[in-house]
């Protein structure tokens, strides 16, 4: 055992020395891994940090390998010079790491791998391993879960998967290997809103809904009838629909086209008569923007501490999906699910460069939904 550890440490030191770009694995318990994946996410965004990241992961891997060396046979894959025997072994070695790790640590909920892969990784993935492909070239993320519980799997995956990444879910219990495409995640818990309302409290709008698809179609109809552009996001145990940021009148009604999505200061307050002019001259122009987010989930939630900005809302909208996949729509909408409408209203003043989130005292969420004609269609 002792000598085996020594040999393996040396082999890995040689690998580092040769700067071999192989799959890299890091694993921890639930809390540690969560923290670590966020660090990885940050680092892989900048390519200049890539080498340092790989080096750090290699160091972790050496320590890790020594802990599981009893069951891990590195000699099978590495030749005498310290290199991999072939490219496929780079993948096999990775998979064996996953398997051994899970056998060793019963309480380990998942392990994560990040690294560069040559060849077709998907063809070599085992049944219970998730693969997430980053948009970065050749960068790949592996996730293996120990749990059989789909709900927990979804929660963990939601936290792990990069916002811009689709993942392929391969269920080991079914031969068909279904692919479930989840919408990109919405910031969770959601940022504090200007106003909010629980639409399920009325027991009228969504009483007959059985699936996510039913809820989605009701909201879609209401939004579509009022010419709202929308995007879909995933949230824990549910999904979110966001509307594109629009310019609204002071009473909460939507502006008519083409002013609805014109965020220039001139469109906010058009000067028609002398009263408008004097108002603009002495008080300055101001305007209101609004985005509505429908949250459908059975998980209780509050607000995050981070206030969202007008720019972030605009950016978020561009990342959402245009529609929900049929598989996702088939998820059950249970009695525990709630439909919450969060209103993000921003006020911009002439003297400000950026719009600020309106305080919750201006208009209620019901007023917003009534003035935008959404409530009337929901009924």
């Amino acid at each position, binding site marked *: 055992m002792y000598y085996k550890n020594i040999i393996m440490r040396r082999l890995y030191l040689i690998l580092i020395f040769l700067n071999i770009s192989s799959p890299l694995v890091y694993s921890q318990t639930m809390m540690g891994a969560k923290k670590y994946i966020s660090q990885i996410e940050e680092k892989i965004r900048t390519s200049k940090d890539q080498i340092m990241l790989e080096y750090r992961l290699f160091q972790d891997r050496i320590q890790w390998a020594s802990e599981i060396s009893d069951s891990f046979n590195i000699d099978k894959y590495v030749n005498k010079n310290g290199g991999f025997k072939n490219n496929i072994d780079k993948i096999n070695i990775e998979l064996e790491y996953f398997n051994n790790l899970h056998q060793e640590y019963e309480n380990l909920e998942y392990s994560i791998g990040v690294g560069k892969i040559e060849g077709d990784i998907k063809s070599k993935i085992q049944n219970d391993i998730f693969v997430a492909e980053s948009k970065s070239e050749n960068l790949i993320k592996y996730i293996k879960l120990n749990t059989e519980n789909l709900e927990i799997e979804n929660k963990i995956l939601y936290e792990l998967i990069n916002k811009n990444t689709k993942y392929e879910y391969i269920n080991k219990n079914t031969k068909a290997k279904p692919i479930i495409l989840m919408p990109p995640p919405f910031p969770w818990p959601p940022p504090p809103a200007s106003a909010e309302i629980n639409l399920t409290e009325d027991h009228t709008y969504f009483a007959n809904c059985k699936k996510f698809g039913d809820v989605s179609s009701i909201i879609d109809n209401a939004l579509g009838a009022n010419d709202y552009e929308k995007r879909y996001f995933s949230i824990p145990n549910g999904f979110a629909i966001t509307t594109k940021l629009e310019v609204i009148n002071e009473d909460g009604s939507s502006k008519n086209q083409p002013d609805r999505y014109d965020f220039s200061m001139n469109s906010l307050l058009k000067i028609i008569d002398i009263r408008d002019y004097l108002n603009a001259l002495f008080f300055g122009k101001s305007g209101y923007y609004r985005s509505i987010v429908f949250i459908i989930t059975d998980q209780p939630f509050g607000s995050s501490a981070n206030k969202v900005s007008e720019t972030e809302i605009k950016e978020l909208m561009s990342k959402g999906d245009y529609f929900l996949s049929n598989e996702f729509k088939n998820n059950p909408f249970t009695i525990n699910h709630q439909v919450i409408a969060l209103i993000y209203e921003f006020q911009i003043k*002439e003297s400000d460069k950026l719009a600020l989130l309106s305080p919750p005292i201006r208009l209620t969420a019901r007023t917003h939904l009534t003035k935008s004609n959404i409530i009337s269609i929901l009924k």
Partner: protein
Amino acid sequence: MELHVCKRRIALIWIIGVLILCTILFLQTLANKHEGHINEVWGWILQCTLPILSLIIGVMTLNTFQADINPIQVDKFTFNLATGLSLIYILVIGLIILLQPFTGKPLWQLSADSNLYLAPFQGIISGSVGLFY
């Protein structure tokens, strides 16, 4: 045309003009139109008008008790030039303030942009008006 008459007329143009401009800005400040940018806006208007206005008022105050025994005659064209340039200068500043609601830009931003063309203009005005004082 007598010099002391010219001085008074030019002084009146400047005092009335600056008073109107400052009153508008004062009301805007009270209405909180320039929230967070009050210093920029007032700094701009004072920088544009105060040097010439100080010259006019300072010299006129100094000459208050001096007897005007032999009135100096001034060329009418020189006086008209100084008056005309003063009026145009004050009018340009006034237009920046009054037309700002149509521009879509805040006044503090417009004022910063206007420095480019107002600064040389101010130099010409100073030369023209300074001749009388």
